[in-house]
């Protein structure tokens, strides 16, 4: 592949990935409003388009045309930069996430992922760990006590749960023997006894999966760990002082992070794009993408379901849960996994 085709293919893949991701973000918001509505015996959005399907478009237009207020006495450079930082880091990590196998289009072979790096998982972790700055700086620069409290809570919470999150992934890494997300998915192909898929969640990593699940909820500031924006006590937390498109950027960052976390869970624990393949060749080519999307959707649905069901933790409960329960559990899981893998080899 020469340089021109490489750049052309990369640009096409980036454009497709960004469009798909932003559409997914918009419709995750719609899905959340709809599902939470039904859980609470309401209809959710119904007015704009059939089943309220055009609601995200209406919301977007509204966000763009709203007055962009800047409160007095904010620290302007960081106040403006904070939502951008949050959104940029939330959107960047999609670059290393594979959604399917290699495909050949017009004689050019390319993986279904923007770029395949051999430390893919570390890149995702690094980028998400930088996302904290958006939230923390927004809280600090807004010059409001609610925002500051939200920002402080967010940074403490995200730094604390990042440790459990990272440790829960190491078990998977030991089993796959690689940091590359593609290798990790490839290691999960095939079946036990012909019918149980060899996904990591069925290979003894079920504890790690639940640690990851809980740490991921905390990392993305979602109920039951949405202390940084607890509306009953902090108005809206770190984005209290933001309006219009700047607020929308935080919103998009949150949902983009949710999707990244869902993709990562799918790749690491749920076997990625592996699933039953059947039918004519064209169907066989599309099915892996379909399975990947179904798994991500299931994970997102779980997110929303939990939001509609559980109340919020208290802050001391959150910290105690993270440090005194999740962290020891993650370390124990790591030791057991390492022991078993060492015995097997």
């Amino acid at each position, binding site marked *: 592949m020469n340089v021109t085709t490489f750049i052309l293919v990369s640009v096409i893949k980036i454009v497709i990935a960004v469009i798909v991701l932003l559409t997914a973000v918009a419709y995750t918001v719609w899905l959340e409003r709809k599902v939470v509505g039904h859980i609470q015996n309401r209809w959710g959005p119904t007015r704009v388009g059939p089943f309220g399907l055009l609601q995200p478009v209406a919301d977007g237009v509204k966000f763009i045309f709203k007055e962009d207020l800047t409160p007095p006495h904010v620290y302007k450079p960081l106040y403006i930069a904070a939502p951008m930082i949050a959104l940029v880091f939330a959107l960047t990590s999609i670059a290393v996430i594979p959604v399917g196998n290699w495909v050949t289009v017009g004689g050019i072979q390319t993986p279904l992922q923007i770029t395949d790096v051999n430390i893919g998982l570390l890149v995702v972790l690094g980028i998400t760990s930088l996302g904290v700055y958006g939230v923390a700086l927004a809280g*600090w620069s807004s010059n409001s006590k609610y925002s500051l409290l939200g920002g402080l809570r967010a940074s403490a919470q995200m730094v604390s749960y990042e440790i459990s999150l990272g440790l829960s992934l190491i078990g998977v890494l030991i089993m796959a023997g690689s940091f590359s997300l593609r290798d990790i998915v490839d290691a999960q192909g095939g079946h036990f006894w012909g019918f149980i898929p060899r996904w990591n969640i069925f290979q003894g990593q079920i504890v790690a999966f639940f640690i990851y699940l809980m740490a991921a909820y905390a990392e993305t500031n979602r109920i039951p760990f949405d202390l940084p924006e607890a509306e009953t006590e902090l108005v809206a937390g770190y984005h209290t002082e933001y309006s219009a498109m700047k607020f929308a950027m935080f919103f998009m960052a949150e949902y983009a992070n949710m999707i990244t976390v869902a993709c990562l869970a799918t790749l690491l624990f749920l076997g990625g794009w592996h699933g039953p393949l059947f039918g004519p060749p064209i169907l066989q080519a599309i099915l892996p993408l379909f399975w990947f999307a179904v798994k991500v959707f299931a994970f997102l649905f779980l997110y929303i379901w939990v939001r509609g069901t559980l109340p919020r933790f208290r802050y001391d409960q959150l910290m105690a849960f993270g440090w005194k329960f999740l962290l020891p559990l993650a370390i124990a899981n790591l030791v057991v996994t390492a022991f078993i893998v060492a015995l097997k080899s």
Partner: protein
Amino acid sequence: MLHLIIFSVFGLVCVAGAVNLLVQRHPINSALSLVVVMGSLAVEYLLLGAEFVAAVQVIVYAGAIMVLFVFVIMLLNAGVEEQTKGSRVAMLVGIPGMLVGSLLMAWVLIEHSGTQAVAAGALPGSPKVIGWLLFHDFLLPFEVTSVLVLIAIMGAVVLAARPESAQQKKES
């Protein structure tokens, strides 16, 4: 060639971030400049072929330690730093002196230390190599360092958790 250009650009960004760290008067801006320094250092490692070290640099330094720095600055609500004019002699002698010193050091390192310049992508930096070095060749220093860190953590806990009797005295 492209490697060299990108390497130089990020080297300049790194130095600019370091200078900005000193010039800025607000602690948050200084902390963020340090994040820029860490990030561009990570890119330099990446260009030299040490991708694992680069990722760890971002995760640990930029993503965890600097977040705690920013956290502390936010918590203490540190204001704008007060600056004195400083003595003119320090400005006149210090800046040229620093320039000459660093040039001298670079010259000595390049000409007389006997080390070779590292070509881009030449460092063995895969996770496997690093892991082997840490847990095999340098196992003892590694474990000693971890004990040292553990002692530091315990010291911090002891300092943070004041004895109850002292706290009660304060309250009464």
